[in-house]
């Protein structure tokens, strides 16, 4: 009650204050930022975090998916000869394919960079073709060329009296075949990334190096490579992750054969999880490289960030 005896109603002023504070809250920059990023957070949560979390959960279940066995599936896998072979092959496949793609891409980028810009576009377009064709389709074309009985490559070899090569029937030839197809498919990606990086290197640096009497190799070592270091790191990291997760090339070309000697994580996970009806163990196979790749990615990205800060 007020001093004059009238009753003061507090509610409207409280309501006004509430509306005002809500208005202030919604006008805060952090709130707006949060609201605007909510769709992205929902997408990441729904399409990345949930599937990844569910895959981890699946990998802890028993074969019938009725009870939790913790890391039991990983323990069983590490006790399996075939899985050790898969680890070994995945590493051979990913490391050699990425190295080859990086070197071929680097060489192609330099060759393209040297072409006058007028004629460069058509070459760039042609060299990108392997990368834009869906890999399942292009791999089928390669499979016809490697076909065990009717290989067109072997036909050409026979014309020159070279004995036929068992492209998909012998272990090392089969491994080489899947690496060749992966390099053919992935090298254009490296090429285009390196070409973009090359174009961003200031011409003055080369001119200064030329005045100092630097040779071609010295220009490459002291100008080009340092200026491309970040893009090389990111490209190699990205390609390594994608190559480790490769599925279609091995699936179409060899189906993991002969004697499981070309299986990689993804094809083996499909065979164990879907074809053999052991979904939890398949999930464990597919998650096996996750910690190693995550650590590798962490260090690479940290290095990139550090160098970027130094440059600034």
């Amino acid at each position, binding site marked *: 009650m007020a001093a004059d005896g009238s009753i003061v109603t507090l509610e409207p002023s409280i309501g006004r204050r509430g509306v005002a504070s809500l208005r202030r809250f919604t006008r805060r920059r952090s709130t707006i930022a949060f609201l605007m990023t909510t769709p992205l957070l929902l997408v990441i949560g729904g399409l990345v975090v949930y599937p990844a979390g569910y895959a981890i959960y699946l990998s802890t279940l*028993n*074969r*019938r998916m009725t009870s939790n*066995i913790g890391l*039991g*599936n990983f323990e*069983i896998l590490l*006790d*399996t*000869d*075939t899985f050790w072979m898969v680890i070994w092959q995945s590493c051979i496949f990913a490391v050699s394919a990425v190295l080859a793609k990086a070197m071929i891409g680097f060489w192609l980028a330099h060759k393209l960079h040297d072409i006058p810009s007028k004629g460069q576009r058509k070459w760039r377009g042609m060299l990108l073709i392997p990368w834009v064709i869906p890999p399942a389709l292009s791999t089928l074309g390669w499979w016809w060329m490697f076909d*065990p*009985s*009717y290989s067109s490559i072997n036909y050409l070899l026979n014309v020159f009296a070279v004995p036929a090569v*068992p492209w*998909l*029937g012998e272990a090392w030839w*089969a491994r080489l075949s899947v690496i060749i197809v992966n390099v053919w498919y992935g090298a254009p990606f490296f090429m285009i990334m390196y070409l973009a990086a090359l174009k961003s290197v200031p011409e003055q640096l080369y001119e200064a190096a030329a005045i100092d009497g630097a040779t071609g190799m010295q220009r490459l070592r002291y100008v080009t490579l340092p200026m491309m270091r970040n893009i090389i790191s990111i490209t190699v990291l990205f390609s390594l992750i994608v190559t480790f997760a490769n599925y279609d090339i091995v699936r179409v070309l*060899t*189906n*993991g*054969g*002969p*004697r*499981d000697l070309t299986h990689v994580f993804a094809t083996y996970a499909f*065979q*164990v999880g*879907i*074809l*053999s*009806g*052991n*979904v*939890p*163990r398949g999930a464990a196979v597919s998650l096996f490289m996750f910690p190693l790749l995550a650590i590798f990615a962490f260090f690479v990205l940290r290095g990139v960030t550090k160098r970027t800060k130094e440059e600034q």
Partner: protein
Amino acid sequence: MASNGITRRAALGAGVAGVAASALPLVNIHAQGTAGTLRCGFWDHWVPAGNGIMRELCGEWGEKNHVNVQVDFITSVGNQNLLTIAAQAQARSGHDLLAFPAWEPSAHADLLEPVDDVVNRLIEKYGPINTAAEYLAKREGHWRGIPTVSGSQQKVPCARFDLMQEHAGLDIRKMWPATDVRGPGADDWNWATFLTAAQKCHAAGVPFGLPMGAFTDAVDWVGALFASYNAKFIDEAGKVTVKTDPGVRAGLEYMVELSKVLPDDVWAWDDASNNRALISGRSALIFNPPSAWAVARRDSPEVAEKCWYMPMPAGPAGARVPYLPYFWGIWSFSRNKTAAKGLLEFLSERGSAERQTTTSSGYDIPPFASMSDFPIWKTEGPPVGVVYNYPIKPHHHATQSVAFAPAPAEIAVQAYNQAINTKLVAHVAKGGETIDQALDWAARELRNFARG
């Protein structure tokens, strides 16, 4: 803003009313005298007409029983059917009934409606279902799927009778004529005779085209060979016996010998490679359903007219036929189980089965021995009677087999899909290991399948 006389609320209201009004007739149509909708996912048949007959049969039954039958055909190319089954099992939603490949009924037994009532009525009418199908579909005493007609196949020898006569000295049409008799030489049709014939044909430049990779054609025929040696990789209780079982060792020794006279590239063959070997005239014999002959008839008629199907060679334990059936199963979460059972019973009856088999040129094998007399197997050609001996007849003295039976299905499926039997042979024949080393490897792999 100028008003046009219609408020937003009024416009929304009118829209909702319109949608409701337009949907009303649909609801009414379904509610009047229909038994609802039945969503079926059948296997997308290799033989194009195979889908047509399924659609026709479903339409006939649906019309008679006032059920709206929706039919989808799901391909096995790229394992799309397996992915569909896995997705629907996880989501507990999808079709009412599906065609399940051989190992799937046991893998999803907990989610499949028992169909004992339907199967028992069919058995009463047509006699017993073969034991291989029973092994795959029966879990804890209950049938979880009905062996299909459409898509179920056997992989028996399809040989070039001219080449077998010329190079191996075997007149296979006399041995296994298109009648219910065993001809001269039929009693000697065993794996030893087969090896001799394989060696002679290899020497003549037309080797037997027998795949040895990780695809089903390879696993199935090698599985049947081991079964005919009474080999058990794992016993009924799930105990790994591969190292101690005499049948496995005997079968393996035989396979190593046989693999010496197969083409060098069979280790990388897929399910189409053997067909190509036959159709191109490079091979004297393959193991396959009549699809190989049917494609030859289209693409290479001069080869097709010299083909002849015959029973599998016998081993010490008799003749075993590689059998790869499909099963029709009803999800436990189906909303129309009664209608699903009714349709499946109709599709399994003799009249429907004969129409399916006839349309597929004899490819589809019914699960009942009493249905091995459909006229199509006698009349199909050229040469007329080419597929007479494709289904098992009583005079063949043969039984169907599934690789890795009688192991518990959840272990056997892993061994099957990871082709442990062909890899076992490859470890010795191509990997340079001794038989004992290879058996050690197989035992370790199989033990891990049973864990977890």
